[in-house]
Structures are given as C-alpha cells and as structure tokens.
C-alpha cells in the first residue's frame, strides 16, 4: 500500500508542494520574527520595556518583585532616601510568583543586588490558569535566557514546539511593540524606575472580604516561591518578603499568606504582613482601588518598609 501511495502522482505533487510551502512558511516566519524581535528589544517605554530592563539591564542595588501591587506600592524616593541605594521596581501588572521567580533567575545570573523585596498578594498560591498563560510575556526571552525556560514551559507541554516559529514569542504584542517604540506609554502613565504612581481616592466603605476563602493551593507556585527564596539566599542577597495593605478586611488570614510566612521562616527570611495594617486598611483616602494604594499612601508605606529594612539590618544603610 505504501508503494501504491508513493507512486501516486497526486501524493508526489503534494509532497513537493508541501516542501515548498514549509520553506516559504519558515522563511516568512524567520523574516517577520526577526523584524519583530528587533523592534521588541528597541522599545523605550511600556510594560515590555520594563521587563527587558529588569531582565537584561538592571544594575540597581535594591529591587522589588511582584505584581501590580508591587509596581504601585514601592516608591523609589522612599528607599533611595532612607537606604541610600539605587532602586528598581520590577513588578508587573497581572503577573505573580511564577513571573517574579523567572525574572529573578535572569537578574541573579548577571547581577547581584544588595537586597530584594518580594511583594506577595492574598491568594498568591491559588491555582488560576491565567497565571500560567500570562507567562507569555517571557516568551521573547526564551531563546536567549535558558534560565527562564523551565518557567515558560509550565504554559504547556508543547511550548517548545510552538517556539519553532519565530513569530510566536511576539503573539499579541504587535500593538505594544508599536506603542513601546514611541513615547506613548511614558506620556500616558509616567513610570519612575519601574514604580507606577496612581492617583485617586476611593469613595466607598470597606467590607469584610469573604470571597473564596477555601481555594486550592497550587504546589507549582509554592515551589516557585521556594526557589525564589533559595536563589536569593544562595546569591547572598538580603531578601524581604512583604504583603502590602488591602483596603478591605479579611475574616481570617489568607492561606497563601500564612503558607508564605511559614516557608519564609523556614529559610529565616524576614516576612512582614501588612495586609491588614490599620494605618492603611479601611481608609478610602489611602487607596486607588480595593487592591492598590494611591501615590501618597504608597510613599508612606514605602517609607515604613524602608525604615524596617534599615532597622532589620543596619549594614544596608549607607548613611
């Protein structure tokens, strides 16, 4: 039957045309992929630019990792003034421990900050599929940063196969690449050393937040958190883990925060839970929305953390 198939003229024609098709496809893919890669790494503003900076260029002594809460809560001015260290905030909106861990691996490979703050959120270790999908922001670095590959591969078994295509790492980035090569992002939302100030006051009263208290813990994200801690310790970096304030109150401590604290204790890493700090929580004047502090409060909160770091370990302060 195989011989019959091989002598079938239609099959021969198909094989030849398939060969041509694949050749054209991979050539076009290579050209468009290369152009996009070039434009991607030439960006001068926007979230992708900030990730590029954190992964490949950052040389700061103090770095902050985490989600949008990290990005909006840790003000460079407070840390630079209190600790006298250069500062960069590598938090990224909508990305959590898996992303932070991948970025810290890339940073530690080429540079050793003096200190790192990891901001964790409530429900940090909850299984949530989009946490894996959002690792797509690391795809452009897959080729050049082997240290992040194991994290990116968590997106699915066939991620390396999809990466045969040079265009795939730039999926859904066309618009951001275009805008990132202009000053659009800088004009729209000015960012100061990775910190993004947001200004508004809430106009609502706090409630007791009882949303999904009994969620499933995702062991992969817990392992990623442990790896983050171990890597910092192995590199001799002073690590501080913080849960920054929320607007609403919780009837019980969040399971992820409790677990994160236990693990931090195991590795003798300072863990500061400010999620229900009465100096911030419950006061609408402090918050932009229920999860994010506004700029004046973030400055106040950053000063508080900077002072804690200073008193926790005097050798960090240059003054």
């Amino acid at each position, binding site marked *: *039957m*195989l011989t019959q*198939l091989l002598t*079938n*003229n*239609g*099959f021969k*024609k*198909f094989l030849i*045309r398939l060969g041509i*098709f694949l050749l*054209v*496809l991979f050539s*076009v*893919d290579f050209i*468009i992929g290369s152009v996009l890669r070039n434009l991607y790494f030439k960006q001068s503003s926007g979230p992708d630019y900030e990730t590029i900076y954190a992964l490949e260029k950052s040389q700061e002594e103090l770095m902050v990792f985490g989600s949008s809460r990290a990005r909006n809560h840790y003000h460079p001015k407070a840390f630079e003034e209190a600790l006298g260290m250069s500062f960069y905030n590598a938090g990224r909106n909508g990305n959590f421990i898996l992303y932070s861990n991948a970025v810290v691996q890339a940073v530690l490979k080429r540079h050793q900050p003096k200190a790192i703050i990891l901001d964790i959120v409530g429900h940090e270790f909850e299984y949530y*599929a*989009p946490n894996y*999908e959002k690792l*797509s922001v690391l795809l452009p670095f897959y080729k050049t940063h082997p240290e992040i590959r194991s994290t990116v591969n968590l997106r*699915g*078994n*066939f991620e390396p*196969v*999809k990466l045969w*295509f040079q*265009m*795939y790492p*730039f*999926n*859904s980035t*066309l*618009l*951001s690449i275009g805008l990132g090569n202009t000053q659009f992002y800088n004009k729209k939302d000015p960012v100061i050393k990775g910190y993004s100030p947001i200004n508004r006051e809430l106009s609502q009263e706090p409630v007791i937040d009882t949303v999904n208290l009994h969620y499933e813990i995702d062991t992969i994200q817990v392992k990623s958190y442990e790896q983050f801690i171990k890597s910092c310790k192995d590199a001799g970096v002073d690590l501080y883990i913080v849960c920054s304030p929320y607007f609403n109150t919780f009837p019980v401590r969040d399971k992820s925060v409790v677990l994160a604290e236990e693990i931090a204790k195991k590795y003798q890493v300072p863990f500061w839970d400010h999620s229900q700090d009465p100096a911030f929580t419950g006061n609408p004047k402090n918050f932009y929305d229920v999860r994010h502090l506004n700029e004046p409060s973030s400055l106040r909160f950053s000063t508080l953390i900077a002072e804690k770091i200073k008193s926790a370990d005097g050798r960090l302060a240059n003054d």
Partner: protein
Amino acid sequence: MLFNSIEFVFFFILVTSLYFILPHKYRWFLLLVASCYFYMAFVPVYILILFFTIVIDYFAGIWIEEAQGKKKRRYLILSLIANIGVLAVFKYYNFLNDNLTFLLHGAGWENPVPYLSILLPIGLSFHTFQAMSYTIEVYRGHQKAERHFGIYSLYVMFYPQLVAGPIERPQNLLFQFRTEHKFEYERVVSGLRLMLWGLFKKLVIADRLAIYVNAAYGNPDEHTGLTLAVATMFFAFQIYCDFSGYSDIAIGAARVMGYDLMKNFNRPYLSASISEFWSRWHISLSTWFKDYLYISLGGNRVPIPRWYFNLFITFLISGLWHGANWTYIIWGALNGFYLVFALIRSRYIDKHLENKIPLPAWIKKTGNILVTFILICFSWIFFRAASVQDAFLIVKKIFTFSGPLFTDFTQMFYGFIGLAVLLARELKHEYFKNATPLLENRNPVVRYATYMVLIALILLIGVFDGSQFIYFQF
C-alpha cells in the same frame, strides 16, 4: 483532544498518514481506534456511555429491519428511550431536580431526591442525536441496518465530528466507510485549506472576542448598557466563529481522508429573515429537528394554529437540546416566537404593505439583514448569560443605554482585524462569487501570500490559551 491544540496536529498527521498507508480493509479499525483515543483524551470513562448506546442502537437497527408491524416500532422506541435516557440522566437530571427543589421549597417541603455528582460527557447531545437518526432512518426504511459492528461504531464515533458535529445522517456517512478513498491532491489541499480557515476563525476571532465578552458577561452588574450591547454583538461573532470554526476543521479533516461531511454554516449573519438564518445556522441540527421532530408533529400540513405550535415547540426543544438551563429554553422560545411572528406578519401584514413603501431592493435587503442580526443578537443574550436574572439585567441595562463603553483597546484592536478578514471573505462569497478568490487562487503567489497572511495572523494575534469550543458542552 481539542482541534486547536498541538496534540491534535500530531494526532492528525499520524492518523492521516497511517490511513493512506494502510490497505482499505484495515482503515475502519484505524479510524475507530483513533476516534476512541480522541474521545478518551477528555474523560476516558465516558467511553462506556458511548459503548452502551452503540450496542443498543446496533442491535436495535438490526431488529427494526427484521421485525414487522408493532414490533418494529417497539424496537425503535427501545432505541430512543436508551438514547434519550442517557441524555436525561447525564444532562437533565440535576436541572429537573433543581426545579423540583424550587417547587417543593415553595410549598414548604424538602426535596428527597438526591443530586448526581457527575460531569456532562463531552459532545453527548451530538452523538446521541446522530445515533438516533440511524435507528429512525432504518425504521423509515431509508437506510439498511449496518451489520458490521465496527463500522456502525465508527458511524457514531468518527473523530472529526464526534464531539460537536456536524450531526450526520446514516445515508450520507455509513457508505463512505466502505468506499476506498485514494489520495487525491485537490481534495487533500482543499481539506487543509478549510482547516486553516477554521483555525483562524477559532483562534483569531472567537477566542479574542471571548476575552471582552467574558469580562462583560462575567460581571454584568459592573458594566454599562453600551458595554453589554457591544459584548453581545461580539458574542454573536464569537459563537459563530467558534462553532463554524470547529465545523470547518471537522469537515476539512474528514475531507483530507476522502470523507464528505455536510455543510453546517452558510454565512448566517447575511440572512434577511429569521427563517433564512435558521437555514444557514447549524444546518445539521436544524435539519435534524425538521426531519425527525417538526415533520413528525405534522409540519405545516396541519391547521394554521397547529402549524405555529409545531414550529414553536420545535424551537423550544432545540433550546433545551443546547443546555439544561432556563436561559437556553428562553432562547429557543424566543426564536420560535420570531418565526411564528414572521409567519403571522407575512400572512396578515406584509401583503397590505407590499409596494407601498417605495425603497430600492438593496436598501430593503440591507435593512432586513440588520433587523435579523439585531433580533438574533437579542436572543444570544439569553444563550450567553449565566442565569435568567443576569439575562434580564443585561436586557434592562442595554435598553437604558447609559454609561461609557468599557474599552479594552488591545483586545478590540486585534478582534477588529480578525472581524475585518471574516467580513471580507463572507461578503466575497455571498455577493461577489465571480471575484478572484484568494485562498483558492490559481496564481501560486497570491495563494501562498494568502496562506502566509492567515498563518501570520494566527501566530501574531491568535489566542493560544487552549480554550475549549463552546459547543463541546452540549
């Protein structure tokens, strides 16, 4: 296994290659094993349910053919009870129980009937309907009973259309498993093209629009009427591209191996009336209901009130077929109402208005297309909403039309690129049939350029989160 996964690409290449390498007499076995593997990639144990209905319908078919008179009818009823029974247990039991609880609770009683903690087997409504069409056709004498158990099993389980159709008829499919299909270049390429277009519709349009739709419909309380109206229009295209994308991949995959499956969609949003819409949307299900329910109820060869009733009840049951929820029942009822109203209007109103409004034909047609689209969009609100309460809230908000539009610029930008390509292709195929085609162009440069643009758009703006097809849940 999802059509929009890398696993499926490998599966398809392997099965199709083996299919053409193996001698014809072994091909049914290959396809059956492949189909079992394909189905078991979801929830393996549910293959036992399929096996149960296959065994019943296989023997019922033979007994129906051999029996005479009332016995023949009894065997058909046995087959229908088995199929509908499986649907009733797995799909409707908890829904009925919920409603019973509600009624008993109103009277102050507790419901003693326990709930079943079961997942709905994937594509259950599709393969049970396909199985039922077999025994009904044997009963009607339109199809000979299939004696080969493997080939009959393959009729129910043929992997391209196993979980979301098209719902085939035995006269169209069974004989094809006995026909030897040789490798035909044109057929293979045409099948692959259709698969590419289906993938484009699913990844670039449906899954992209779904991001906006899910955000709005997931939280209707917090969104404005304008946002919900836009989300509803996006959902109309999402569900069309999701389901017709699946059908294109299914028809294309079957075509590559030499099988012809029935067309399931025919540019439905260019319909100028609701009845035209239903002759272009999910054609395999619409014709199933027409052939086996509407006509069995008497169709239109009955007194006019009964005709309207037949039409309405057919759509009501079609709504229930989609899901065990009042939202689907209302959706079906609404479409039934549209059709009955259209009949009444054409009978009593239109003939008095005919030629009284002097408008060019193209304006009338465009107006009719827009009105049909708006009516269908309105019914989609009930199809998509999580509950009846949500649906009415959305309707209320849309009609008050207050507040700004939630603008997710990135998703909208990519979504509109996909929609522009879709619209161009649909308009070309509907109104400019003689215009130069792109995907099928004779000039290889144009053809290859079109392939490349589609693939580049899939890679650059497609959504690769491995989301399921909406109709799998039915």
